[in-house]
C-alpha cells in the first residue's frame, strides 16, 4: 500500500524549513511489517499562530515543531493540539534540550525530540520512526473499530433472535386474553403449542449462547480423558430419536469400534448433537441420515450425511457465521438458534480439526468433522477474531 502523509514543519528560521522540505521531498519510507510505503507532502509555518491557522483547514499527520518561536511557543501549540484531540504526532525540534522542557513536552503529548542541528539522515530516521508509529496506531484503531462493529452487529441480531420468541408468545397471550377466537378452550390449542415450541427454541438459543461464550472465553472447564467416540454417537442418536421418528427419518450408524479420542466428553457430545439434530431437522419427511466414525490413525473422521433440503454453493459459503441461518422457503419454519455451526467449528478447532460441507440442493448435505487425537501436534488454524459476548 502507498500512502502520502502530510508533514508540517513549524520553525521561524526559513533555512530550517527549506532544508526539512528538501530532505523529505523525494524521501519515501518502507514499513515492511505492514507492507506500507509512505512518502510525504511537506508544508511550512513560520510561527505557532501560522501553524494553528493552517491546521484549521489542513490537519497534518506529523508536525516538526520548534520549541522556541517568536510568538506563542511550541509548548503552547502542543497544548492546543492536545486540547483539540487531533490525531497528530508531534516531534519537538530544539536547540536547548533541557531535561525540564523535554519532560514538559512529553507530558503535553510530544512523540519524540530532534536536537538542533541535525543531519538529513537523522531527520529521516526520526520521521521514519514517527511514521511507523502513526500508521500502526491508525491500523490498530481501525481494527478495534471493526471489532466493535462486529460485536455490535452480533448483539443486535442476538437481541432480535431473543426477542422474537418472546414477542410470539406474548402475542399469543394477547389473543387468549381477548378471547379472540371464541370461548372454546380447544380453539386455543394451536396457540398454546406454538408458544411452547417458541419457548423451547429460546431455551436452546440461551444454552447455545452459554456454550459459545464459554468456548470463546476459554473458561469452559475441560476434562480430557479417553473418550469412546462411537458410544457418544449412539447416545446422541438416541437423544434425537423422538425428533427423527416425528419426521419419519431413519438414522444409520457405522463406526470403527476402537475409535478413541483424548477429549472432553461434553464437547464431543455437543459436536454430535449439532450434527445429528441438523441432519434430522433439515431432512425431508421419510428421509435418512447416515453417520460414520472412522479411525484414521492420527485423526478421527466423523461424517454425517443427510437426504435433506441441501444448500446452494452461496448458502454453504455463509453457513458458519453467527446467526447466518439460511433463510428460504424451505427453512422458514425450522427452529434453530443460528449458533450451532459456529459452535461446531470452534469446538473442532480445539481439536486441531476442521469442518467440511458438501451439499446439493434438494439432495442433501454431508458434514465431515476431522478431529486430531493429539490436538497439540496439529496446527490450530484460528482464522477468525473471537467474538466476545
Amino acid at each position, binding site marked *: 500500500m502507498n500512502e502520502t502523509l502530510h508533514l508540517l514543519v513549524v520553525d521561524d528560521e526559513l533555512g530550517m524549513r527549506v532544508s526539512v522540505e528538501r530532505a523529505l521531498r523525494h524521501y519515501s519510507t518502507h514499513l515492511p511489517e505492514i507492507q506500507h510505503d509512505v512518502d510525504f507532502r511537506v508544508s511550512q509555518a513560520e510561527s505557532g499562530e501560522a501553524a494553528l491557522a493552517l491546521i484549521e483547514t489542513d490537519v497534518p499527520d506529523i508536525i516538526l515543531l520548534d520549541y522556541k518561536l517568536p510568538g506563542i511557543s511550541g509548548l503552547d501549540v502542543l497544548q492546543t493540539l492536545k486540547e483539540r484531540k487531533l490525531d497528530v504526532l508531534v516531534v519537538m525540534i530544539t536547540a536547548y534540550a533541557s531535561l525540564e522542557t523535554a519532560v514538559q513536552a512529553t507530558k503535553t503529548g510530544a512523540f519524540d525530540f530532534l536536537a538542533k542541528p541535525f543531519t538529513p539522515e537523522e531527520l529521516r530516521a526520526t520521521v521514519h520512526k514517527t511514521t511507523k508509529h502513526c500508521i500502526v496506531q491508525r491500523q490498530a484503531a481501525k481494527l478495534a473499530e471493526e471489532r466493535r462493529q462486529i460485536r455490535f452487529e452480533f448483539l443486535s441480531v442476538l437481541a432480535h433472535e431473543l426477542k422474537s420468541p418472546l414477542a410470539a408468545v406474548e402475542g399469543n397471550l*394477547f389473543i387468549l386474553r381477548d378471547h*379472540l377466537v371464541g370461548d372454546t378452550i380447544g380453539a386455543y390449542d394451536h396457540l398454546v403449542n406454538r408458544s411452547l415450541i417458541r419457548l423451547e427454541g429460546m431455551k436452546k438459543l440461551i444454552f447455545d449462547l452459554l456454550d459459545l461464550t464459554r468456548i470463546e472465553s476459554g473458561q469452559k472447564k475441560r476434562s480430557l480423558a479417553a473418550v469412546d467416540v462411537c458410544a457418544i454417537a449412539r447416545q446422541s442418536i438416541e437423544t434425537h430419536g423422538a425428533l427423527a421418528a416425528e419426521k419419519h427419518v431413519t438414522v444409520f450408524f457405522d463406526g470403527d469400534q476402537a475409535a478413541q479420542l483424548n477429549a472432553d466428553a461434553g464437547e464431543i457430545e455437543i459436536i454430535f448433537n449439532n450434527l445429528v439434530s441438523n441432519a434430522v431437522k433439515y431432512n425431508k419427511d421419510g428421509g435418512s441420515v447416515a453417520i460414520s466414525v472412522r479411525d484414521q490413525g492420527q485423526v478421527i473422521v466423523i461424517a454425517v450425511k443427510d437426504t435433506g433440503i441441501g444448500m446452494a454453493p452461496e448458502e454453504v459459503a455463509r453457513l458458519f457465521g453467527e446467526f447466518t441461518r439460511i433463510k428460504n422457503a424451505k427453512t*422458514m419454519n425450522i427452529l434453530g438458534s443460528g449458533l450451532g455451526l459456529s459452535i461446531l467449528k470452534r469446538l473442532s478447532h480445539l481439536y486441531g480439526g476442521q469442518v467440511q460441507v458438501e451439499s446439493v440442493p434438494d439432495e442433501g448435505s454431508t458434514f465431515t468433522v476431522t478431529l486430531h487425537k493429539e490436538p497439540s501436534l496439529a496446527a490450530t488454524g484460528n482464522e477468525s477474531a473471537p467474538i466476545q459476548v
Partner: protein
Amino acid sequence: MTMSKKILVVDDDIDQLDHVSLILKADGYEVIRAQGQMEGEEALLSTIPDMAILDLMMENMDSGFVLCHQIKKLYPGTPVILLTAVKSATGVDFSPKTSGAANWINADILLDKPVRPEQLRNEIKRLLA
C-alpha cells in the same frame, strides 16, 4: 360496517403472521399473508392492498424499509405500519432522523412487537379513516 378492506401482512415469523392475521380477521378485514420480503414483493404484483403491515427485520436487516419504499412508490395512498422487535432491545433508534430519511422510509407508523390487539385496531382505524 363496510369492512372488506384488504390488508397485506408480511412477516417471516409464522407466529407473528398468525397473530396479526387473527386480530385482523376478527375485525372482518381481508388478510393477504406473505412470509418474508420475497413473498411480500410477489403479493404486490397481484394485489393492491388498502393497507400493509410489515415486519422490519426479515431476510435482511432492512427488509421492511425496502418493502415499504416499494409500496409507497407503487401505491402512494396505501398506509404502511412497520413492526419491529428490535427497537427497545438494542437501543437502536429506527425513527428517521432527517426529513430525507423520513421521506424515503415513509412508513405511517412504527410499532413495537408484539403489537397489542387494541393498539393495532386503533392505528388501523385511524389510518383507514
